[in-house]
């Protein structure tokens, strides 16, 4: 049996988290290959439906990453993302999806290490949860 190789989508904001991921690269920090990054202008630009669509298409985990609260390049986009994320958690429950499959993280432009560690941790957790199609979800 082949090992479960999860598919993770990460929506990273252009100003902090995408730059943090770049810093992980320039610092040559190693992290699991499972993540695919989609650049957004702001975490507040991420529609809740993006996450649901990704899950519908078979993603095993989805992350939204933005600037730390108070540091948003657009003043308060991350606060909007936080409110919507809370709402998403409710929808996940209604749909019978495991809320641990989605994640909201604040990763600044200087936190390459945090980016790499977050992906490591998330990939490990998703591996422990197992594949979605093979399970009950």
């Amino acid at each position, binding site marked *: 049996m082949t090992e479960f190789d999860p*598919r993770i*989508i990460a929506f990273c904001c252009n*100003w*902090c988290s*995408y*730059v943090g*991921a*770049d810093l*992980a*690269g*320039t610092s*040559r*920090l*190693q*992290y699991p*290959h499972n993540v*695919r*990054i*989609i*650049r*957004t*202008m*702001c975490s*507040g*630009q*991420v*529609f*809740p*439906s*993006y996450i649901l*669509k*990704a899950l519908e*298409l*078979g*993603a095993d985990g989805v992350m939204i990453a933005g600037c730390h609260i*108070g*540091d*948003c*390049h*657009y*003043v*308060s*986009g991350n606060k*909007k993302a936080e409110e*919507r994320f809370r709402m998403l958690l409710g929808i996940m429950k209604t749909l019978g999806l495991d809320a641990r499959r989605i994640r909201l993280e604040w990763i*600044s*432009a*200087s*936190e390459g290490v945090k980016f*790499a560690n977050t992906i490591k941790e998330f990939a490990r957790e998703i591996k422990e949860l197992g594949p979605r199609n093979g399970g009950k979800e």
Partner: protein
Amino acid sequence: MTNIGIYICHCGTNIAGMIDVEELARKAAKLKDVSVVKDYRYLCSDPGQDLIKEDIRSMDLDRVVVAACSPRMHESTYRKVLSEAGINPFLLEIANIREQASWVHSEKEKTTEKAFDLVRIAVAKVKKDEPLESLPADVIQRVLVIGAGIAGIQTSLDIANIGYEVVLVEKEQSIGGRMSQLGKTFPTLDCSACILTPRMVEVSTNPKIRLHTYSEVEEISGFIGNFHAKIRKKSRGLNPDLCTGCGECTARCPTKVPGEYDEGMGKRKAIYTLFPQAVPNVPVIDRANCVYITKGKCGICKKVCPAGAIDYELGDEIVEEEVGAVVVASGFDPFDPTSKEELGYGRYKNVITGLQLERLLHTAGPTKGEVIRPSDGAVPKRIAFVQCVGSRDEHANKYCSRVCCMHAIKNALLIKEHHPDAEIFIYYIDIRAFGKGYEEFYKRTQEHGIKFMRGRVAEIFEENNGNVVVRADDTLLGMVMENEVDMAVLSVGMVPRSDSAKIQKLLGIATGSDGFFMEAHAKLRPVETLVDGVFLAGTAQGPKDIPDTVAQAKGAASSALGVISHKVLELSPLISEVDERLCRGCGDCKDICEYGAIELITLDSRNAARINPALCKGCGACTVACCNGSIKLRNFTDTATFAMLEAVLGGEA
């Protein structure tokens, strides 16, 4: 008919070493609507760019995907390539296969697979991209400089001397900053005031520089080319236009308090200027300590002022300024060593900081240049310098503060010149004498008999006579040593200015893990920030000595001039737009917009939202708030995102 060209960069071995470029090209060639796939050693080089241009022209490509380094590196380079080849520059996507794949993974097969996914995402996106035209916007040809230390002064003078206006804002009552506190400067030993004060006078007399001292920027709105700043001019308790700077008020003021400018080593009055050559030479009433203001008694300064300038009730004033670019030169604070309890600062009188010693050595300082120890006023004969206090320290700041080695060496030499019989010990980890002429200066001090002790100081404790004992691990001899000295000087490092968090929030710029403002690129964009039109100068960006500060300040001036010397700038067209036919006019988008960029208009007797393209910053918050999808963030639409997700998860492009 879509005609996409995909170009894969090897980046030498940076990409090709971990990604099977040929395999990636083979797979990419099979994607729908892709006409050509090529790989090249260095795509950003001239021949690499020409390769893309030729294909666009000869093969009628209408969209391009570049699989290479981060778009933050070369997105603008490739946009220009598209423009020059005759297609719209926004029909480009970058697959970031270096920072997000080859540099962070170590299994070639998996990394190649991931790179292909990133290319698929980019192809899906580029198909949804629409051609966009940049928006022209008028530029306000003035620069706001925050902070008037040597960095802000140099930036302002450079800009003003080219012929553009500068608004220079200084929080303190005089310009000059930290450099004005210094006596002699390394390695030339020329006096700080002798080289700084002429520049300060130049600032005050230059008609192109509008100076706001004792003032703070409270609000900044707008965007590159068009910033609006609200500045609070704090009340000095007197009318600066009437004040002649005669100094009578200061001389007669009966209140004395420890002076901040002297780092607490001397006293100042409750109505005071920072130093004799202050610019402007106008005092400030310290409202917390003025007896008239706190108790309603005294009023001497008002009685003696020949110009009738004193006005205790005078309130703050708000001024508004329009500028096209901003330079942040807010400087540093010395590290507060109180937190390093083992060194006894604040508990033992004869443990002082390097900046306090600097004030003692200053000929215009509280002791007129005589070094005395605080406990009894005696001249210390044995002095220990403790290096790296708050720097290169896992428990404080990890970085090197870059000036403390030379600063201690310089002050050691000055003491030695005054008192050749003084015994001086410098406890260091490494001596960093990296600047021009620094190593030679260091050698010179060694010849003066200053003793360099290699080892970090573990503890300082006090003897009954006020002397302090320095305990350190001598890493050259491999033994613990104790040394009783008359006074210990802590070479404290640099930390970000206490209000730098406020400035960061005002401008939306980023700080690094050390708390200093972050440049756009560590090597190639050292004065730019990630916010267009906002630049950095001096120690606000990281510890620096004076030559490096001045060099960076000149760099910031030229970068700011690069913005404001244009009458018109092209603004990014990546902003939101409303489909007015669909809009129901509910106004949710208007409420969520942080920039007031959306207004409700009447359209055929119904409401509809309209976006002001000059104010919209393209965050996309309104697009999510819209109840029926009638607002789109250009080229970041939901349909594009769904297409990308389908490409990578559904396996199609």
